[in-house]
């Protein structure tokens, strides 16, 4: 239990820094909003075409803002060389990892919470016709990105070209997550929503998240050494 308390404390530390500076949230939200504006020019805007492309738009936005947020969240630890302090803290490293992942997931979710309504608004799609499964799949997606992303963002801290390498590493590994996310969203916004498909993809993403969470817990300690 104390492990979870430590993890929550690490996460709360990150979120409190963020609440005071609001740097990542403001820039990520603005970036997400810009993406939505670019989408509305880049893609055909008639109702049918938008229905087909909206899942892709949503998940590309989540992927892009997710990697930017991840990079920033870990840059902060690098700038003041606090990652070492964090790893030296007398708590299990697992707690540090879980805390970082939790805080990142919260950030990604905050951005998704702004981008999704914006998409629905600007492109007039009934994204929120079935809000519960949509929210569940977005939460699962954010958790997946945060978990896998935290492992690699933490190992990339000291690497010069980390901004380029993070997506190079993450996107091939995250493809199943994006496919599950887009397929589930597509099933929900279709003219006749397909709840069986949506549920299948929610289960798929749940298992994917669980598998990679366990794997990350296993390897985090051996990957992140100072």
């Amino acid at each position: 239990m104390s492990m979870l308390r430590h993890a929550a404390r690490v996460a709360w530390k990150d979120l409190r820094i963020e609440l005071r500076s609001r740097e990542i949230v403001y820039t990520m939200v603005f970036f997400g909003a810009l993406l939505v504006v670019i989408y509305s020019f880049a893609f055909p805007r008639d109702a049918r075409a938008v229905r087909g492309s909206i899942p892709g738009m949503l998940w590309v936005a989540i992927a892009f803002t997710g990697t930017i947020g991840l990079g920033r969240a870990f840059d902060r630890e690098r700038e003041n060389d606090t990652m070492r302090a964090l790893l030296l803290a007398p708590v299990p490293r697992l707690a540090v990892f879980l805390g970082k992942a939790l805080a990142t997931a919260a950030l990604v979710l905050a951005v998704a919470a702004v981008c999704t309504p914006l998409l629905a608004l600007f492109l007039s799609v009934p994204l929120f016709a079935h809000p519960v499964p949509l929210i569940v799949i977005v939460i699962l997606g954010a958790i997946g990105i945060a978990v896998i992303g935290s492992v690699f963002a933490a190992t990339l801290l000291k690497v010069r070209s980390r901004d380029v390498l993070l997506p190079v590493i993450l996107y091939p590994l995250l493809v199943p997550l994006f496919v599950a996310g887009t397929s589930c969203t597509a099933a929900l916004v279709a003219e006749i929503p397909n709840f069986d498909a949506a549920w299948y993809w929610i289960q798929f993403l749940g298992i994917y998240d669980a598998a990679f969470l366990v794997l990350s817990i296993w390897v985090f300690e051996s990957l992140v050494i100072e």
Partner: protein
Amino acid sequence: MKKLAIPLFAVLAATCIAASVYLVFFVTPLEYSFNEAGKFNGSSLFFNQKIFYFHVGHAFWLFGAVFVSGASSIAYLKTRNPRWDDIASASTDVAVAFGAVVLLTGSIWAKAAWDVWWQWEPRLTMSLLLWLVLVGYVLVRRFAGPSADRIAAGMAIFGMVGVPFIYKMVGQDSHPAAGKNGVVATLGPGMRGAFWLSVAAFLCWYLALVLSRLDSTRAERQLRELREHGLDLGVLQ
């Protein structure tokens, strides 16, 4: 013994590949595919099917190589013995080359069989995404600096775990089947010998490549360690 291994496998690979090319083009029968009822299937591949011997031979050892690098990455993270890391790195380098061959030959075959260069079905998608992870691995190794070994090891392990998810994720399957009732297990007697010879040929080829790559990755690492050591002692600047 060690010095002999590379030329030995290279010579073996060369003879086996030459022999299997001869067998494939002059001995094996042309393929007539039959449908489930045993009747002649109009869309037979005839001569195009010959690429099968090279495509599947490479695909076998692509997955073999990925397994080798995943397993040695785990061993590296567990033991911290850089020899394991050398093996993982060498095997992945070769896997990238084999993956490129698999994707290219597969694409040529797909054009002949399905009349498209590419189709998003499970095994193609799996090979492509696996290949992307491998290319990412090579990029990380080259550009991630001193901590490249750990990041790359993590990538290899994550990539290996991701494979079944990728497989599950893509729907229907029009690829020739694998497994107990698959194409390989039910090969005609005229084709079986040539097929297994080509698989053996590419195994020798894989081993020759990995062993020679292993030498150079090990030399690179030793040079790097030597330079770090020299820097520590103040001999080098």
